[in-house]
C-alpha cells in the first residue's frame, strides 16, 4: 500500500485502515516542568498501544502542553494523539499550533471542546470558545485537504493530519448523540474515541443508532474504557464525573473484593471482559484505554485481552 493513500500515514491510521483492532492509551502530562514523566509513561506503554492520547490541560488544570509532551512521547517511541481543546485557544492559535505540531512530526490530532474552566485550577480564566469542536474538525480538514486557512487564505504545505474527535454516548439528549457524531463525520473526523464506557447495554444501544445511520462505515470508532483500581474509583466516577454512567452492578462488583491488589486484579479482569464484549459489537474498530494514573495496568490488560502483539504496519 503506498503512503499517498493515507491522510497522514500515522501508525494509528494505518492500523485502522487495515481493519485491525486498534488499541490506544492515554497519558496526562505533568503539572510541572518535569521532563521525566512522559518518558516514564511512554516506556510503560510502548509496544502495548498503537498510539497514546496526550491530554491538553485536562479537566482545565494547567499541565505541560500537549504539543511538547506529544513530541516527547514520539521521541520515546510512542506515537502521539495530540489533544486540542477549544477552551484555551482561538482559531489563530489552533492553526498555528497544528502547523507547528505537524512540522514536529505529530500526525494524530483529537479535537475537543474541553471541560469548562470552572472544573479546573484557574476558574477565573476567560474561556476562549472561539470555535466549537465541530468547527475545529472542519478547520483542520480544510487545512489538510484544501490547503486553506479558516479565513480562506491558501497555504503552501498542508499539515498531514489524522483527525479525531470524542463523543459521549451517555450524554444527553441521548437521541441527539448519534446525530452529533454524524455532524462530526460531516465536518471531517476520521476517528472517534468515546467517553469511558461502563454501561455496555447503553453503549450497544447507541451503536445501534450509529449503525442505523451508517456512521460506523464512515468513521473509526474506538470504545473508551477505564480500568477501575477499586470501589472508590467506581463510586467517584459514578457520582462526581460529569457525563459518566456507571451502573450499580459495577460498583457492587468492585466492592465485593478486598481493597488493594485483589481489587486491582478484579478491575483488570473487568476491563478485559469489557474489551472482549465490546470488540464483538459491529462497528467498533478498537479500544481506547484511559488508565488515569494507572498506566502500569495497561500492558497486562492488553495481554489478557489477547491483543498482543500489536500489529506492525509498514
Amino acid at each position, binding site marked *: 500500500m503506498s503512503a499517498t493513500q493515507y491522510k497522514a500515514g500515522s501508525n494509528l491510521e494505518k492500523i485502522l485502515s487495515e481493519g485491525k483492532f486498534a488499541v490506544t492509551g492515554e497519558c496526562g502530562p505533568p503539572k510541572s516542568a518535569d521532563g521525566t514523566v512522559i518518558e516514564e509513561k511512554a516506556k510503560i506503554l510502548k509496544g502495548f498501544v498503537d498510539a497514546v492520547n496526550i491530554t491538553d490541560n485536562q479537566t482545565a488544570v494547567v499541565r505541560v502542553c500537549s504539543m511538547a509532551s506529544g513530541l516527547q512521547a514520539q521521541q520515546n517511541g510512542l506515537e502521539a494523539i495530540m489533544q486540542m481543546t477549544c477552551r484555551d485557544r482561538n482559531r489563530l492559535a489552533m492553526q498555528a499550533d497544528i502547523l507547528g505540531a505537524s512540522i514536529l512530526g505529530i500526525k494524530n490530532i483529537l479535537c475537543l471542546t474541553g471541560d469548562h474552566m470552572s472544573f479546573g485550577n484557574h476558574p477565573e480564566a476567560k474561556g476562549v470558545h472561539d470555535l466549537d469542536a465541530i468547527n475545529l474538525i472542519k478547520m483542520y480538514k480544510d487545512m489538510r485537504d484544501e490547503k486553506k486557512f479558516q479565513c480562506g487564505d491558501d497555504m503552501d504545505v498542508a499539515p498531514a493530519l489524522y483527525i479525531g474527535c470524542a463523543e459521549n454516548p451517555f450524554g444527553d439528549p441521548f437521541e441527539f448523540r448519534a446525530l452529533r457524531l454524524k*455532524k462530526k463525520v460531516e465536518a471531517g473526523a476520521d476517528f472517534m474515541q468515546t467517553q469511558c464506557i461502563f454501561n455496555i447495554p447503553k453503549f450497544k444501544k447507541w451503536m445501534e443508532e450509529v449503525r442505523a445511520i451508517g456512521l460506523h462505515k464512515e468513521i473509526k470508532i474506538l470504545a473508551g474504557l477505564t480500568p477501575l483500581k477499586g470501589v472508590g474509583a467506581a463510586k467517584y466516577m459514578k457520582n462526581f464525573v460529569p457525563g459518566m454512567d456507571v451502573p450499580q452492578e459495577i460498583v457492587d462488583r468492585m466492592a465485593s473484593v478486598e481493597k488493594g491488589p485483589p481489587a486491582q486484579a478484579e478491575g483488570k479482569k473487568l476491563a478485559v471482559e469489557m474489551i472482549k464484549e465490546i470488540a464483538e459489537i459491529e462497528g467498533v474498530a478498537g479500544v481506547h484505554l484511559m488508565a488515569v494514573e494507572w498506566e502500569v495496568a495497561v500492558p497486562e490488560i492488553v495481554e489478557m485481552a489477547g491483543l498482543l502483539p500489536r500489529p506492525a504496519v509498514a
Partner: protein
Amino acid sequence: MITAERKPFDEIYAMTEGHDKVLVAGCDTCVAVCLTGGEKEAEILAAELRIKAKEDGRDVQIEHTAAIRQCEWEYLDAIAAKVEEYPAVLSMACGIGIQSMAEKFAPKLVLPAVNTNMLGMPQEHAVWLERCGACGECVIGDTAGICPVVRCSKSLMNGPCGGSHDGKCEVTTPEKGDIDCAWALIWDRLKAQGREELMLVNRPPKNWSKSSSGGPRKMVREEAKPV
C-alpha cells in the same frame, strides 16, 4: 434589561476615602427595576456610608440623588446642579450610565458602586437570568429562540458538549446551582416546533468581529438623524 449588582460595601466605602463630599447617584431605569441602583437603593447606600463614616469619626458629607436615566445626557441636566456641588460621585447606574456621567461631568471623579453583569430577563420577582451577550449577529432564529452564545457555558454553535446531563449543563457551582443546558433546551424546543433538522446543520465558526472582539462598536442610523 441591563442588570447590575451592588459592589461589596467595603469596596465602595474605600472609594469614598479621602473625600469630604460624596454624592451617591442612582438611576431610575434598568438598575431600579433590578432593585440595585434606583433612588431607593441610592438613599440606602448613602445612609450606610454616613453611618460608617460617622463611626469612623470621619467628617464627610454624603447625600444621594437619582436621574431618570443616567445613560442619556438630557436626563443628567436635571441633576447637574447637585452633581456640581460634589467633587466625587458614586454612580449606581449600569456601566453605561456611569460612563455617561463621567463624560458629561468630566473631569469630575465618577466611581462605580455597582458591578454591571448582564442583559437579563426577570424570571420571577427578584430573579434575573442572562439572556443575551450582544454578540452583534443574532443566531436564535435557528436555535428556537434560545441564545447559545450566553446560555451555553461554552458558546457552542453546533449542539451540546459531552457534559450535558439530564437537561443540565456540566457547569454547576454552589453560587449558581444547576444551570439549564442551552442545547438541551434548544433540542426540545426545536422538536416541539418540528424543526429539529436545524440541529443537524453544521454551522460555521461564528463571526466574533461583530461582537466586542471586533473593538468598540458604534451604531449610526443616518435616516433617523435630525435634519
